């Protein structure tokens, strides 16, 4: 076999499984979901084309309020995660050296190796009425009766921030680590204050890490189901819960698909906006 036809052959052998995976598990399911969302059930096995599932979303306040709330809380969770994680990442990347640095970094990774369910369960034990924090507050005398700290928005927020912390810390440490100390020293030598150095040297350099961290954290919060349900209780009003209810409980796949597509559009828009604002390419940020 001559070389070029051999190369062609190997290309096709490698391309075939990939294309099958892409078509059957990613592209066609989403195309199918779009087509399901655009139909209305007239009678059994009889459907017509309709935008009703989308108009329903805008007519029913519960739906779009849940949607806006989910998006807003996810943005907030992303910002809080960034604010908490940045100083810690900087400390690990720039203030630490050698073994201690590696140790602290690995310590940050630990929660990632533990199931999200276990992490959330830990917060439930801490925050519930008979939980540790409540007992502690009573013990030090700040409260004379059990305090229920579960089933509210703050609990959801703590859970979201905790769950996604790692996905912010890792890209931040990686980019900050690549910043040469001499650049920071040069900033100070040229008379810059702490604030100047931070906003004009450190943050611009860390931008790729900040963007990829924020995108991943936002996606994880938006698509989260466990944390809002378990920490937020019955009234958590998270959009993925609506999707689950329509698909599994009410068996209204048309409505559920429309919700799924709307959530997908929202997340794609925010990812796109994040990339545009920071002038990053999707391929760079994701890999």
């Amino acid at each position, binding site marked *: 076999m001559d070389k070029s036809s051999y190369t062609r052959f190997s290309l096709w052998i490698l391309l075939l499984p990939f294309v099958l995976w892409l078509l059957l598990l990613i592209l066609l399911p989403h195309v199918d979901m779009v087509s399901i969302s655009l139909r209305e059930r007239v009678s059994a096995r009889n459907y017509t084309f309709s935008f009703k599932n989308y108009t329903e979303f805008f007519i029913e306040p519960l739906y779009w309020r849940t949607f806006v709330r989910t998006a807003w809380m996810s943005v907030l969770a992303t910002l809080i995660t960034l604010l908490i994680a940045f100083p*810690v990442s900087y400390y690990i990347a720039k203030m630490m050296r050698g073994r201690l640095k590696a140790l602290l970094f*690995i310590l940050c990774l630990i929660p990632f190796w*533990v199931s999200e369910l276990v992490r959330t369960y830990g917060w*439930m034990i801490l925050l519930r009425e008979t939980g*540790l924090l409540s007992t502690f507050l009573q013990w030090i005398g700040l409260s004379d009766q059990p305090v229920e700290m579960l089933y509210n928005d703050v609990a959801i927020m703590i859970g979201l921030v905790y769950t996604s912390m790692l996905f912010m810390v890792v890209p931040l440490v990686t980019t900050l680590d690549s910043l040469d100390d001499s650049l920071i020293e040069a900033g100070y030598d040229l008379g810059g204050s702490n604030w100047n150095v931070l906003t004009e040297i450190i943050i611009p350099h860390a931008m790729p890490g900040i963007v990829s961290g924020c995108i991943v954290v936002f996606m994880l919060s938006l698509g989260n189901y466990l944390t809002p349900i378990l920490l937020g209780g019955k009234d958590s009003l998270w959009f993925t819960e609506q999707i689950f209810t329509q698909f*599994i409980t009410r068996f209204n796949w048309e409505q559920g698909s429309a919700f799924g597509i709307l959530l997908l559009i929202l997340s794609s828009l925010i990812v796109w906006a994040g990339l545009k604002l920071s002038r990053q390419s999707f391929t760079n940020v994701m890999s």
Partner: protein
Amino acid sequence: MIPTISSSLYFRGTYAVYVGLFFIFLITPLTVVGIFAFNDSMFPSMPWNGGTLAWFLNETEPQLGLFHDEDLLESIGVSFVVACFTTIASLVLATCNAFLFEREQFPGKNLLYILMLTPLVIPGVILGVSILAFSSTIANWAEMQFDYDLEFLRPGITLVVLGQFAFITTIATLVISARLRKFDSSLEEAAMNLGATRIAAVMTVTLPDLKPALIGAGIVCFLMSFENFNTTLMLVGSDAPLTIAMFDRLKEGSTPVLNAVSLLLMVASGVLALISVFFQSEKPGS
């Protein structure tokens, strides 16, 4: 704000305390889960009634221990089977993908690479429902056309494996590609100059070099599959994997047997994490 630049002791002290508090925040929930596995009480909450191993070993209700809880053990088995299939399938496809994107040149490569990455930005719940919807569409169509029920396309273990395979492949591809990119392809050419066919060269030279990445990626795949919740939730049938079984119990109100399972999971993940760190840091050829 780097060690070589002087800053006030007060600033350094505050900064260190902040980082310390962060690590306490990180560790506390996990520690609490572990400790309460040994509480001799019907609820995983205060007060502390003294230590016991009952939530692991006890054979009778109401304090039914983990090692005698048939339902939980069965769900661990389901999760294990799912994770094995998902890992093998993802590793095979990811290795092909790595060679495809690192070694081959073809039109539309960039677009396909972006499409390969999309599962990272699709929320797990949506990936789950889209696969659920599509497989049902196919199954319904087959039933209408051939009057034959394609049972594996209905919610159940096969769909769970497919759903997890859909996004875990992307992650494995990234890990393996990163390693393949660093591999010096002149070594492969040398093998071919010495008379090896391309397949033989890949098998004897390239793949052994990729071994640490393959093992690392395999462990990541296994853990991600074992711990996946969102995608699994939408595709699950009557055999519930561990995360789903635990979630159902958590909603009903839990007993510390869940802490026992969690502790077991943490220990197992910890061991796997150590193995993966060990293999990742192993230098090739040394």
